[in-house]
């Protein structure tokens, strides 16, 4: 099976309709922590097997007008080291493209290999027969640069963005995996946040760390540790200390 079809209660799609594909239900959508929820779905259902085609409902969860399918598509494209990062993504729904234009994630539809299709089982069947991935890994970074995301509204302003991005960047320069930092795993700073996930994916292949940086890391570690102090001798009462 080279296709996975996600569905939700709004759509009448079952495994019986697509016996040669995996049909997976979106249930218990956590709208409050939507990025974490989506990241978890990808971890659970898209990390193990590579698919050629991923079919996603345009809307799921409690709000039909949020078009969470667009957000989910971007999560897939920005999930680093995921086997399905470059899979073909078909978003099915009943809305026209014009009604999506103001969505924050509308530009995902401009990325190679992402397409909006009508909610029509025959049409979905046509698309799951697509044999090859349209997007290659080499093209991915360039495609991601087409996206522009606004600063998340749950952060105050640019300073808060820098407070999070600054940590990731400093860790990267120092050769430390952010997963070693416990407090970066909190929801607020989580890399699951689609904004930061997109930023990191976009800058993934940069040659940020040079030999000079590596040399500095080593030298600094030796300097900052310094000698071990075993004890101190108090010379304050020795008169001769004043003698020159």
């Amino acid at each position, binding site marked *: 099976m080279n296709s996975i079809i996600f569905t939700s209660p709004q759509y009448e799609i079952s495994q019986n309709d697509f016996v040669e594909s995996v049909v997976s239900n979106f249930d218990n959508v956590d709208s409050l922590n939507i990025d974490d929820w989506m990241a978890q779905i990808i971890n659970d259902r898209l990390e193990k097997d590579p698919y050629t085609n991923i079919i996603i409902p345009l809307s799921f969860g409690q709000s039909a007008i949020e078009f969470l399918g667009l957000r989910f598509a971007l999560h897939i494209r920005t999930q680093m080291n995921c086997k399905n990062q470059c899979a073909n993504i078909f978003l099915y729904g009943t809305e026209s493209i014009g009604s999506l234009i103001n969505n924050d994630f509308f530009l995902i539809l401009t990325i190679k290999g992402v397409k909006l299709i009508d909610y029509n089982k025959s049409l979905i069947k046509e698309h799951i027969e697509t044999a090859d991935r349209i997007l290659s890994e080499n093209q991915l970074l360039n495609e991601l640069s087409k996206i522009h995301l606004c600063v998340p509204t749950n952060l105050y302003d640019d300073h808060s963005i820098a407070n999070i991005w*600054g940590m990731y960047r400093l860790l990267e320069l120092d050769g430390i995996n952010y997963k070693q930092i416990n407090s970066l795993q909190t929801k607020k700073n989580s890399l699951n946040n689609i904004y930061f996930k997109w930023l990191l994916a976009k800058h993934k292949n940069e040659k940020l760390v040079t030999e000079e940086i590596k040399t500095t890391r080593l030298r600094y570690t030796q300097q900052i*540790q310094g000698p071990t102090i075993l004890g101190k001798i108090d010379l304050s009462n020795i008169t001769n200390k*004043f003698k*020159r």
Partner: protein
Amino acid sequence: MKKVLLIDDEANNGWKEVIEEVLFSGEYIDVAEDIASAKEQLNSTKYDLIILDLRFGEHDHQRSDLLDFGGYKILSLEIRSSFDKLNFPTPVLLFTASNKVWNIMEMIEAGADDYYVKEHPNTAYDLDFSRKNYLRLKGDKTHEGIINDLLKIGEKRTKILNKILDIINNSKTAISNNNIKQRIEEKLKIGYGILFGQTTRIEKEKLLYNNEVIAFIVFWSILEEIAKDSFKNNWVMSGNKEGSMRKDKWKLKNNGKIFIEDCRSVNQGKNVGNLIVGIKWDGNKYIAKQSTVRNQDKEINFFTGKVSLSHQIYAVMLLGKGLDPNLAFNLFDGLNKYRNEIDFIHSSVSTIFTTSLSSNQNNSNAFNECIEVLNFINVLLK
């Protein structure tokens, strides 16, 4: 391990751990996430380094004036509010997400020592910015980096300030004249300010400005203050009404008020005990001379001849403070030689014809000399 305080409302949202890992090999650092806890920690613990954010929480983010920002308040109203604050000498690294240069400059005016800009995604395209930002923090081939520099400067400041505070404390009882007491404190502050003021490369290289050397001169001048105080209040006087030694036997400059120009042998009569009464030339250098004890009046033998200004100060101080002349002279003589070498007031014969003023200063270990002169002042005041 160094004591470090991170004052940042985002400290426990990641920065504490990140800084511990990146800058301090995973060692624990203290944090304060608001002004109240920052105050509490700053008043109870002496830190080696303070890493200070500029804006605190939503309140600050709704304001645009630097004076309203928590970081500014902590810096100006707490850390640098007065000379005797526990963390007054502690280096402050501004750790900010603000890229507004005027805010950074204003914070440096208020006492921050350096800054690090938390990176914004807008700079992510400029890899060179990221690298330089990092290398500036941790050092490169030619620079030690902000953290090491600040830790070192903090050690120096603390060392000097502790001595200065000792002097201020000792002068409360050792100096009787309130004006002189105040002048000593002021000179200590001026010297500290000059010593740790930030100087540009242009000032150092093109204008030959050497803050450590100038600070030494300022600290040195405190000896003169002590001499004045000693002269007025503790001078060994003769029995004759007008005939203090300084008037009759010591020729004074400045209408007879302050400095001795020469001194000569005198005999004042009665003994009062062993006193340090003068200085004499032993063939190589001036040495302190004790009085000959006879009776309640003083019989005092003075060397006859010209005495340099510095030794006049020295003599007055010795008489006033009753120091062990050998110890005091060793201290004083070394400092005085150094003062001559750096050429700021006048040159010694050995330097003026042989080396340039700047090379003398550059070759000097002025910071240690500052320490020594402060040590000497403390010896005098104790």
